[in-house]
């Protein structure tokens, strides 16, 4: 470890395992905002996501000796957060159907009604804050089964296999949901970003 380079996750995990609580706190600081985002995106509920954030790091701390280093530390954290978040989601939806493990039928599964080029770069036209708000609201409108797959694959950048494993889905199911999630988001964002789009936030 040199002065200029921050310690790697592996180094911090090693230190934390040997009783260095400061090293664990460093890992918390490194990843808490990303874990909160996963929690928010999956639960769609502010209060639940705060619980998930806390539970995730408490469990990770308590069970650090169970982390075997086969995956990245962050992937292991996301797995804990996903379990917590899915439990919350199911609890909130008692009585309603949570369609995480059943086939989602949407009739026409590859909808592309909005075929329009985008007007320049959204990154140049909206502030980070506006853009984040818009992206969050858009993703939260997806069905649970699509949203969870999209978040893991395209936001957290886990592999298809890791996503399938975490959600208890087959690889083809992950792929088909990802395709439909991507197309639905594309559709919704195109309504906002297309050329000559007036009243850009009206659809929210």
């Amino acid at each position, binding site marked *: 470890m040199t002065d200029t380079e921050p310690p790697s996750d592996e180094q911090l995990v090693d230190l934390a395992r040997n009783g260095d*609580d400061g090293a*664990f*706190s460093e890992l*918390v600081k490194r990843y*808490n*905002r*990303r874990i*909160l*985002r996963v929690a928010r995106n999956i639960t769609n509920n502010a209060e639940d996501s*705060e619980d998930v*954030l*806390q539970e995730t*790091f*408490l469990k990770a*701390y*308590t069970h650090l000796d169970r982390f075997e280093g086969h995956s990245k530390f962050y992937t292991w954290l996301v797995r804990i957060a996903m379990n917590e978040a899915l439990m919350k989601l199911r609890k909130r939806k008692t009585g309603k159907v949570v369609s995480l493990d059943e086939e989602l039928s949407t009739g026409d599964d*590859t909808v*592309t009604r909005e*075929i*329009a*080029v*985008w007007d320049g770069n*959204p*990154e140049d036209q909206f502030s*980070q804050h506006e*853009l*984040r708000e818009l*992206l969050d609201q858009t*993703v939260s409108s997806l069905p649970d089964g699509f949203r969870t797959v999209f978040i893991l694959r*395209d*936001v957290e*950048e886990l592999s298809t296999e890791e996503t399938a494993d975490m959600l208890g889905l087959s690889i083809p199911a992950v*792929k088909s949901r*990802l*395709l439909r999630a*991507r*197309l639905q*988001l*594309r559709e919704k*964002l*195109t309504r906002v*970003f297309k050329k000559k789009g007036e009243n850009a936030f009206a659809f929210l």
Partner: protein
Amino acid sequence: MPSCKDFLRELSDYLDECLDPSTRQELDRHVQECPSCWVVLDTTKRTLKIYKGCEPQAVPTDLEDRLMAALQKRMAEKKSPS
């Protein structure tokens, strides 16, 4: 020659670059000749790009404080199990 429907069905694998070379070539050709699929491809790419590029929001200070307090409590319990 694949149809637009074929193109859409393969779009995810096309973007993730996990198609066999001959299928990929056919879809490349389709997208060069089909303006609607080109637009769908372009806007889907950009959709993924802004999601991936969006930095997560900072954890609000009070929430972070609560998290660290809960963690410190757990750390203390581990050090001196009652």
